[in-house]
């Protein structure tokens, strides 16, 4: 019953957990369902450079992060102009024609452009390509806002580097700086940075400046390998040198860093991780994110046609942990809210996915263990209850056996003292009567007296047998072995089954209660032999060994299959159960060994 109750409780709990999970799952689906209700916006992201260029990739990631939830991912079109690898001006026109063909019939709600070539392309070709479509730009170092205002529907985010902030930072972290080496490329964007740099350096008249722009890279290497400790490199972008060598942005920074003993600073975050110490930076992701937010404003404000202001994001102080260590720069010297990248990964960071997986497995296992512990706890409680019940039952059994034994003893005594005595007197009286009746008396009287004497004798015998069954007087007077011998003789006479009793000559020193229990077990066994065994011989063995009395009742009958017997739960089990209980009541053990065709042996052991 307890088990059934437990199963019901568990099932209910599992159902509740399942229901909660289902509800959570449904709730998770709600935002996407709501998102699906937004108008179907279509946005084009036009990148100046190629996929894999970190600055471009970061801006894209920022834009997509801002648009997420408002514009479906599959409605965002992404193009890479790869302007760095365009050689001829007519390439742009070809690109315009290609886009025109590709996007004919498709109307964008907004166009997001990253970096200057794409912006210039949109200024030149946008009105013909996507007439009336608002444009948001990012990554633009310099833009003539008054010029933009003349062009309809353009806004965006400026990535104008803060040179002054960087020089301030350099002087803060390297107070002994006397010389700033400026490495920059001779492109339009490079020229903007050059101008910004010149303007800013007017504020630092005590610093010497070396320019490396539009030079053979060999010149740079010759110089930077010899720079003294009072120099710092301020690196813009250097993708192509004077003699036409082209460098990947990672490659050139790596080479510069490997070949100089002085720190390198840069205003662009994509240079980080290859040897740049850090700087007051413009981050690609932030640029893209801000432009994406403007696109959202454009989409939502399209009705009232108000263009958002051009955004000038704040500097982010970002540093490379490895370079900070290389130049022995303490983190306490860094500006507030500085971000440090490439720091030593904690074990958690290094194996984040593995840790999450292990934690999930651990939680699942913990839940399973908790449930199992709960089940074990219930089971133990039930087992204890069962044990208590069994103890009570056994106690009651013992008490019942005692009462039964006492009652049998009383009845036996009564039969002996009253009925037995009376029958003896009756017999004596009948003999007296026979002696006083004249010899030549009535034959009829003689016959009746003889019948009565026979009857008295038979009744006396039956009473004795009954007394023996109820309580063997021999047991009390001579002990177990003698009682068993006496009982066996009677049993053999009555049943014709030969019973042999083997036991010690000396009466074993065991308690009377124990003797009674063993005697009753033998009685029950012999009854079973008679009823079920079809045996011709029984051997009862009593033996005391190692502080224990061993009792064995072994017959040569048909035996039985114990497994089958247990499975069928036969009524015959009551006799065995009673015997077992009797043995347990005197702290003994009880077992039956039997198999079909090989007789049955009942074995009892009790401490003496």
């Amino acid at each position, binding site marked *: 019953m307890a088990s059934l109750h437990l199963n019901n409780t568990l099932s209910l709990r599992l159902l509740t957990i399942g229901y909660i999970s289902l509800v959570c799952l449904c709730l998770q689906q709600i935002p996407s369902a709501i998102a699906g209700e937004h108008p179907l916006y279509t946005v084009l992201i036009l990148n100046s450079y190629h996929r894999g260029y970190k600055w471009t990739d970061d801006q894209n990631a920022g834009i997509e992060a801002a648009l997420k939830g408002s514009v479906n991912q599959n409605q965002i079109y992404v193009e890479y102009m790869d302007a760095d690898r365009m050689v001829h001006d007519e390439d742009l026109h070809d690109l315009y024609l290609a886009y025109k063909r590709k996007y004919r019939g498709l109307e964008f709600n907004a166009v997001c452009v990253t970096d200057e070539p794409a912006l210039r392309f949109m200024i030149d070709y946008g009105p013909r390509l996507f007439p009336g479509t608002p444009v948001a730009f990012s990554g633009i170092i310099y833009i003539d806002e008054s010029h933009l205002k003349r062009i309809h529907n353009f806004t965006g985010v400026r990535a104008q580097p803060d040179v002054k902030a960087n020089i301030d930072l350099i002087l803060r972290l390297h107070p002994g700086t006397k010389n700033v080496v400026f490495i920059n490329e001779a492109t339009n964007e490079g020229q903007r940075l050059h101008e910004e740099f010149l303007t800013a350096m007017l504020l630092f008249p005590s610093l010497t*400046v070396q320019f490396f*722009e539009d030079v053979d890279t060999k010149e*740079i290497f010759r110089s930077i390998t010899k720079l003294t400790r009072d120099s710092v490199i301020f690196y813009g972008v250097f993708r192509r040198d004077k003699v036409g060598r082209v*460098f990947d942005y990672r490659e050139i920074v*790596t080479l510069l860093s490997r070949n100089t003993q002085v720190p390198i600073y840069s205003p662009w975050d994509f240079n980080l991780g290859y040897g740049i110490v850090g700087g007051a930076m413009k981050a690609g992701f932030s640029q893209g994110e801000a432009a994406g937010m403007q696109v959202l404003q454009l989409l939502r404000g399209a009705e009232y046609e108000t263009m958002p202001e051009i955004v000038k994001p704040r500097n982010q102080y970002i540093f490379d942990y490895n370079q900070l260590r290389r130049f022995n720069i303490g983190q306490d010297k860094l500006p507030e809210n500085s971000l440090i990248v490439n720091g030593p990964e904690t074990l958690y960071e290094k194996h984040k996915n593995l840790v999450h997986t292990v934690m999930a497995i651990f939680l699942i296992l913990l839940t399973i263990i908790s449930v199992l512990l709960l089940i074990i706890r219930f089971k133990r409680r039930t087992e204890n209850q069962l044990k208590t019940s069994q103890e009570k039952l056994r106690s009651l059994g013992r008490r019942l056996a005692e009462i039964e034994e006492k009652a049998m003893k009383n009845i036996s005594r009564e039969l002996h003292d009253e009925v037995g005595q009376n029958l003896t007197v009756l017999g004596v009286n009948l003999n007296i009567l026979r002696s006083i009746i004249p010899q030549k008396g009535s034959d009829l009287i003689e016959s009746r007296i003889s019948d009565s004497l026979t009857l008295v004798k038979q009744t006396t015998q039956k009473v004795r047998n009954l007394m023996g069954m109820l309580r063997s007087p021999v047991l009390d007077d001579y002990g177990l072995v003698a009682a068993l011998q006496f009982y066996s003789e009677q049993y053999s006479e009555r049943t014709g089954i030969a019973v042999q009793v083997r036991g010690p000559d000396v009466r074993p020193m065991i308690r009377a209660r124990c003797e009674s229990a063993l005697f009753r077990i033998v009685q029950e066994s012999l009854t079973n032999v008679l009823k079920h065994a079809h045996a011709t011989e029984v051997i009862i063995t009593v033996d005391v060994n190692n502080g224990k009395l061993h009792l064995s009742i072994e017959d040569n009958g048909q035996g039985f299959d114990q497994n089958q017997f247990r499975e069928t739960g036969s009524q015959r089990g009551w006799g065995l159960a009673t015997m077992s209980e009797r043995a347990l009541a005197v702290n003994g053990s009880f077992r039956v060994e039997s198999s079909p065709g090989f007789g049955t042996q009942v074995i009892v052991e009790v401490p003496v």
Partner: protein
Amino acid sequence: MTRALKGAGSLQTFTSFFIICLAILASPSHSAPADTIKVGIVDTYTGPASYFSLDVLDGFTFAVNKINAKGGVLGKKIEYFTRDDEYKPDLSLTMAKELILKEDVDVLMGTINSGSALVVSDLAKKEKMPFFVTHTKISKVTMEKGHRYVFQMTDNSDMAGRVAGKVLAKKPFLKYWIAGDDDGYSHDIAETVWKNLKKNNPKVQMIGQSWWKMGETDFYPYIQQIMAAKPDFIITAMAAVTAAGFPRAAKMSGLTQKIPYYEQTAIEHGVICSQGNETPENVYGGTSYLWYYPATPANRTFANEYYKQYKKYPTESSLDGYITAMFIAEGFKKAGKIDKEAFINAIEGWSIDSPLGHLTIRACDHQLGRPLYFGVTKKDPRFDFLIADDIEVVAAKDAMAPCSQILRLRKK
């Protein structure tokens, strides 16, 4: 161009600018002729591939020491700079640029990675810098992608394929299976061998192919598949650095006892040594150098001297390095000056003496002509490593693609 500025528009600006310009112009490395001939080596010095790259370096150093001991070339010692590319082509390119930009090398050489060889070759072309390809056998570098500034100093996969196809065609095998790394290089090798085999013996049949991902470690499923198909012979094609696992699996599974197979570099001493005791017997393969064959006085002397210095026998990679150094020295000597263009003109079609006799760099494609040896691995009680048996020698001229074919490929 270098400019200097101190403040803006101040006199000091110009003074600083002048001083810096002077300093740069006075820099000894700027325009003064170097006292040494500088060789930049980009190769893999970390990881399993370094086993072969270090042999190249040993062979190169062995030769350079000899050359420098004799006074160098044109009165200049040969100086070399190494850079580890960690078996990464992008790093090879960066390191090659560093050697050019910082060390101002006169010649580049390397590398074991075929991808690296191609990107560095491209850089060499742009920089007009002679580049000697050592160890990697990619044929593209001097065939389709060849140019004036690149030289292949070892045999290439096209040559090895031609030789294998020619020799295998004479064997009694008819049913073939092809297996290898699923990359372009291995496909190229297998295709070349098969094409030449089929050309030399039209009766051969390909009954199946297995291609595993690069770096595969569990070869048993493939071996089971091959054994079930019961081919007469297997042609395998693997990169040297990943080829260690297959012989081990082939040996353990009993494949080599049942079906003989070909592996391009199976009899190469360096490859056998790199695989420890795992190399099975009865594997067919080729090499362009065996220290014990031919037992000519020149080869014996080289192997003996090399052994005395390094306590190991020279490998094909050692000879690659050695020959490269000898060609660099002889090239500049012939050119009479340290000039890259004159150097290239000098070594095009030029021959030098080597442990293998006269070796010539063919003018049309800059491929070094080396004889190729084909054989089968076999135990020898004298050594604790396998050696090649049943060796067949194919002369360089018979192994190399004709110039007309190379030129056709380059035009495509």
